[in-house]
């Protein structure tokens, strides 16, 4: 068993990317996943443990060229309190509101939520329906380089992403939504606080005359990764949301998800929840 050989806390992205070149680095942000996972033996910390808290390039929430950039180190509390998020991306507040507890929201970062890649990660579903992109930084040949990737392509399995071992998630980028953009999130758990989602749903699109276009639907905790639901999106696209359409779309949604049985719920129950809550959310869209 290899032990941790080095602890580093770089103060720039450049330095962090340099350390990452060895590929044998475990990144520490808020630690709210890393601590229980490493203490419980589910995750082994690699040769180098790298604390990214002192890297200014990973902090803050700002508008940058028609996009909102949320730094990987932005905490759930910072997102909740951000005026920019309140104004432009209120769907994220709905996800923050039922996230764990105050103590955890104060520590947990958005980057950690994304890189932990839990199928039930609460920020992931709203980010998917907002067409968010991840910004990855590395130093492949001596100089810092960044690449971007749609979040929808980032997740490959529970806890697994397309982030390379020499890459760091620097931030998330979301195009500023236009005026008639609609986006809502709903998390179902058995109790209001400190509960992992039984299922979650995000719905977004351009709302006009009771119909959504450029529809985005995503589901959490019903597949190995937080998933976009192309068939449900297609069933919704451009249709006036009357009772028959809403019923039909909710049926498609129920058949599109592939949940499992676990301690929180059975697969059957999760499918029923997806059906019923999709229906409820669409009824709400129809009234707005």
């Amino acid at each position, binding site marked *: 068993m290899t*032990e*941790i*050989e*080095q*602890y580093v*806390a770089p103060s720039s992205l450049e330095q962090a990317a340099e350390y990452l070149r060895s590929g044998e680095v475990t990144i*520490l942000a*808020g*630690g*709210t996943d*890393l*601590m*229980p996972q*490493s*203490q419980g033996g589910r995750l082994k*910390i690699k040769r180098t*443990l790298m*604390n990214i*808290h002192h890297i200014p390039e990973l902090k803050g929430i700002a508008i940058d060229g028609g996009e909102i950039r949320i730094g990987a180190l932005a905490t759930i*509390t910072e997102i909740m309190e951000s005026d920019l998020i309140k104004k432009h991306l209120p769907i994220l507040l709905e996800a923050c509101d039922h996230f*764990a*507890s*105050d*103590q*955890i929201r*104060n*520590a947990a970062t958005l980057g950690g939520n994304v890189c932990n890649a839990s199928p039930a990660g609460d920020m992931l579903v709203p980010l998917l329906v907002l067409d968010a992109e991840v910004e990855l930084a590395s130093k492949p040949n001596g100089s810092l380089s960044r690449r971007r990737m749609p979040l929808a392509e980032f997740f490959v399995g529970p806890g697994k992403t397309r982030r390379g071992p020499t890459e760091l998630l620097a931030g998330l980028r979301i195009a500023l939504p236009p005026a008639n953009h609609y986006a809502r999130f709903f998390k179902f758990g058995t109790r*209001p*606080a*400190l509960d992992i989602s039984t299922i979650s749903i995000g719905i977004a699109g351009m709302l006009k005359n009771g119909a959504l276009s450029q529809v985005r639907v995503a589901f959490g905790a019903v597949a190995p990764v937080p998933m976009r639901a192309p068939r449900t999106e297609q069933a919704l696209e451009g249709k006036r949301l009357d009772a028959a359409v809403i019923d039909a779309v909710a049926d498609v949604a129920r058949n599109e998800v592939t949940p499992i049985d676990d301690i929180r719920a059975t697969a059957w129950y999760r499918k029923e929840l997806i059906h019923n809550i999709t229906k409820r959310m669409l009824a709400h869209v129809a009234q707005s």
Partner: protein
Amino acid sequence: MSLNHDIEFTLNGVTRRATVRVNMSALDMLREVIGLTGTKYGCGEGECGACTILVDGLSLNSCLMFAVDCHGRDVVTIEGLAADARADALRAAFVEHGAVQCGYCTPGMVMQASHLIATHPDADAEAIKRGIEGNLCRCTGYKKIVDAIASVNSAVKQGATP
């Protein structure tokens, strides 16, 4: 042998140095390296809030925080609250409202309550309940705790306490 690292931080207003294992939690550091046992271990997984401390003015679960991450930061534990007049009012209110039974949750509850009063001075009973969602108490049924916190909040508002 696991790797050690030297850190320096402010603990309850005083600069402290400590040598910690890099994978150790801040809770273990406080209790086992520094010897401050007011901060409690309940679950070790972020569920119960018994280990709540303030770091740079924010309440955190010390069981989820890496001790090395305390370096350069301002840490306050329940022992540090002893010197704070607002916390004195909170302590008195907990006693007066019978918000303590076995007392195991109390240090964490008081830390979270003081953070809540500092950040949400207008919190009503509902907001107080939400604010202490991350703190479990197996004895009191919460009502007395919420009442105690609410009484301090209104005393602060009326200027009866700092």
